């Protein structure tokens, strides 16, 4: 009983440290339960693309599960110091290590009970709401939630293991405990940090380089490969600059005596100089995590918003029928089938376009067959599709356009090809016009490769190229044409299904439907967005709370300092101002840095999104603005609360 009592009292006594820990734990339990319940819910299981959605949720579960454990460990680390001194005291009073562990496991059991019970209840409450949102996003229509026992058991076991880990860390603390060091624990003064100009220069250089890469990257393919490099540089730069530049800036401020010896700056600058040293890495991490959350929100929103656009581009009409054997599809047969199934077809048109051949495109515009040595870099690879001018005129309704035998139009989907001539094998063609789009041509599926459509005077061009182009496996690629029939369709879903089924068995004919593609994409991007959103919001809240509690525990250790200042004649309003400007730095800096990172990452992200067929439009910029505003608002709220609590802690009565 004594052990239970001691365990409980220690929790109550250190509630300021236990609270953030419990909060993080509760939130983690709730979040994990929500995802579990979603996986088990009827609504998700009856989705058309249920297996891929569940797979996505499983992926989210793994990520969030891992993050939960990390957060739990991190917030628990605030407690470690307290725990050490408490255990030290107990052991001075004659407790053995065995007894300390007895207290410790009881504490963890209490923590576990509180965290899981509250977490499970809030999780169930929230899952109803989140299920609605989720089903809405992935385009389902069954909003039924069943509280699955399996989900609850999974979460309980998962967190039981998590708390076991904490118990192990406690045992580690007890095992290493040296009573004597506790008695000698005195506050040692810290030396003023030095300015490291070399590292500062390196940090600036890396940051500028990373930003420069993002700003100047021209092709989506390059963006993909360079993104990683840029991210690494910016991450290193962020850590370096937080650690080094903060000291340099503050020291410069200190050097300007007119600025420094003013009431408002004097205390803040000299405090920050020491504070940054302890907090620089933490603040840098928080900046980067905030950046990550922002990037996740912006990309998932872009994908969600862009999917419609993407599908519209891929499907100029509701249905695309393709005959790969280069035989035109009989319009009459299709119309007959439509009449049989009571569906109305409209805006029908034929299109003939070549299959893509892959080659190696030099910067001077020479397209060559692939060979082992030529393909040194993936971004020199290019897909070529051909289309006759006749077909082009039909599509664009301009019957007057003509091309001479050595002339072509070039349409580069990525918009990077700007040469005046293009050379296939030994034959040069003059690029008469660079097209920015060709109406009615379905865009290709998202792919990593650069691709172009060449409008040629006649098929003799492709005949000449013949089978000279090969794929990487040295197989000859002969250029063949496919015929497509595109049309809109009207009718009930049932009728449409029936109509489409009539072509199932046809040889060489494939049928793609816009609505089917749309619903698959919607469940994918919707689910992706949902997980991104939950992840980012909980992340931003969590980092905010962590700063809050870090500041509060700092406030406690700053009490003595502010006590001196007030004894020497600092007024309440001056204390308030100093506290505010100190705290605003700690909250403001990560956010400002995160926003800067996001803004500079945007050009690169836009390029990468293009690879996935998403064009970034005003909606994305609006979400970006709103997201930033939201994050600033959340942080501002926590900031106000923090500076208030901090002030209360350090203010003297008189």
């Amino acid at each position, binding site marked *: 009983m004594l052990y239970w009592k001691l365990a409980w009292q220690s929790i109550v006594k250190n509630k300021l440290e236990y609270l953030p820990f419990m909060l993080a734990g509760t939130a983690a339990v709730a979040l994990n339960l929500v995802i579990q319940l979603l996986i088990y819910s009827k609504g998700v299981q009856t989705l058309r693309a249920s297996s891929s959605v569940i797979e996505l949720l499983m992926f989210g579960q793994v990520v969030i599960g891992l993050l939960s454990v990390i957060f739990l460990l991190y917030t628990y680390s605030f407690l470690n110091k307290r725990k050490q001194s408490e255990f030290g005291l107990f052991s001075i009073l004659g407790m053995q290590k065995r007894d300390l562990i007895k207290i410790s496991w009881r504490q963890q059991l209490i923590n576990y009970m509180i965290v899981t019970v509250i977490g499970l209840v809030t999780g169930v409450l929230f899952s109803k709401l989140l299920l609605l949102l989720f089903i809405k996003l992935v385009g389902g229509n069954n909003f039924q939630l069943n509280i699955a026992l399996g989900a609850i058991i999974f979460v309980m076991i998962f967190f039981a293991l998590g708390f076991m880990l904490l118990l192990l860390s406690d045992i580690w603390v007890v095992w290493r405990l040296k009573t004597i060091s506790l008695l000698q624990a005195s506050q040692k003064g810290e030396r003023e940090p030095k300015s490291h100009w070399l590292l500062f220069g390196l940090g600036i250089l890396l940051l500028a380089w990373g930003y420069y890469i993002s700003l100047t990257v021209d092709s989506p393919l390059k963006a993909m490969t360079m993104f990683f490099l840029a991210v690494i540089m910016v991450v290193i730069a962020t850590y370096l600059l937080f650690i080094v530049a903060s000291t340099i800036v503050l020291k410069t401020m200190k050097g300007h005596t007119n600025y420094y010896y003013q009431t408002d700056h*004097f205390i803040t600058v000299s405090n920050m100089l020491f504070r940054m040293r302890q907090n620089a890495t933490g603040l840098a991490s928080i900046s980067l995590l905030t950046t990550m959350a922002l990037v996740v929100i912006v990309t998932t929103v872009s994908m969600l918003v862009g999917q419609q656009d993407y599908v519209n581009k891929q499907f100029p009409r509701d249905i695309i029928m393709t005959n790969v054997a280069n035989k035109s599809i009989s319009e009459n047969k299709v119309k007959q089938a439509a009449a049989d199934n009571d569906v109305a077809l409209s805006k029908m048109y034929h299109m003939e376009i070549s299959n893509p051949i892959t080659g190696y495109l030099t910067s001077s515009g020479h397209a060559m067959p692939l060979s082992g040595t030529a393909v040194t870099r993936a971004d020199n690879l290019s897909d070529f599709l051909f289309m006759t001018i006749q077909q082009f005129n039909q599509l664009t309704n301009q019957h007057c356009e003509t091309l001479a035998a050595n002339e072509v139009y070039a349409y580069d989907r990525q918009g990077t090809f700007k040469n005046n001539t293009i050379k296939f094998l030994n034959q040069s063609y003059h690029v008469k016009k660079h097209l920015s789009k060709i109406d009615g041509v379905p865009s290709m599926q998202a792919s990593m490769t650069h691709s172009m459509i060449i409008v040629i005077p006649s098929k003799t061009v492709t005949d000449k190229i013949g089978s000279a182009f090969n794929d990487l496996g040295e197989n000859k690629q002969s250029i063949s044409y496919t015929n497509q029939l595109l049309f809109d369709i009207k009718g009930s879903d049932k009728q449409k299904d029936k109509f489409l089924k009539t072509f199932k068995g046809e040889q060489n004919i494939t049928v793609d439907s816009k609505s089917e593609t749309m619903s698959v994409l919607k469940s994918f991007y919707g689910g992706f967005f949902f997980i991104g959103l939950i992840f980012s919001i909980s992340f931003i809240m969590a980092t905010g709370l962590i700063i809050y509690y870090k500041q509060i525990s700092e406030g406690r250790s700053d009490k003595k300092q502010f006590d001196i200042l007030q004894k020497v004649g600092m*007024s309440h309003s001056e204390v308030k101002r100093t506290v505010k400007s100190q705290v605003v730095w700690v909250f403001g800096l990560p956010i400002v840095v995160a926003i800067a990172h996001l803004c500079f990452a945007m050009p690169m992200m836009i390029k990468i999104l293009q690879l996935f067929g998403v064009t970034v439009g005003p909606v994305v910029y609006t979400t970006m603005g709103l997201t930033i505003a939201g994050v600033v608002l959340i942080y501002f709220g926590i900031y106000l609360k923090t500076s208030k609590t901090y002030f209360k802690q350090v203010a003297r009565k008189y």
Partner: protein
Amino acid sequence: MTLLKVEHLKKEYRGKFKNNTVTALADVNFEVEAGEFIAIMGESGSGKSTLLNCIATLDKPTTGTIMLNDEDLTNLSDKTLASYRRDHLGFVFQDFNLLDTMSVRDNIYLPLVLAKRTKDKSEKLHRLAEQLGIQDLLNKYPYELSGGQMQRVAIGRALITNPDILLGDEPTGALDSKNAAEILSLFRKYNESNQTILMVTHSALAASCAKRVLFIKDGMVFHQIYRGNRNDQEMLITINDATTNLFGGAM
């Protein structure tokens, strides 16, 4: 000229339960002339620190008045207290109370910066630093200093605003005898140049440097000794006799 006048000062602390009050000061009356050097002695718990805190405006008395330069400190509003403190009072504490995040120079500048009186601050600093013998320490940080050096810096911080009165709370309490003697001789030197000093101590040796010693017992001024023509040795003996009589030598 009377600089400080304490009349019927009473301070009660209310305990957690309403009818449980502790009287720290019952009825304290005394006056301090400008240029005096006064030591206040008493047992621990006698209320001497409470008395100093009330004079320092760090604590509010229950009743009674404290007049400094004909201004009643007990009537000052919370807002003016801080500025009054930094403009008229100087503090030296037992545990020095220097800010670890600031260099010696900035610690001494602190009250000037707070009072926005940074004009010709460096002349003031250098004059004081020379008198206190800390010229070489100005760029160091408090944790690099010995106790005696820290207390000298604290004296510098207390005196840089030319306070009406210098208040010391056991200023030699944390020092060894050699450093304590040096600090006391500094106090005496500043007193000779007309700085009024009021210090609380339980060390008879420290008190023997003062011109007058007040003894506090049961929350009242019980006894006082004027130095008169006594030298340090005679003063010390007189104080020791008085403490033996008053407190049974328990100090």
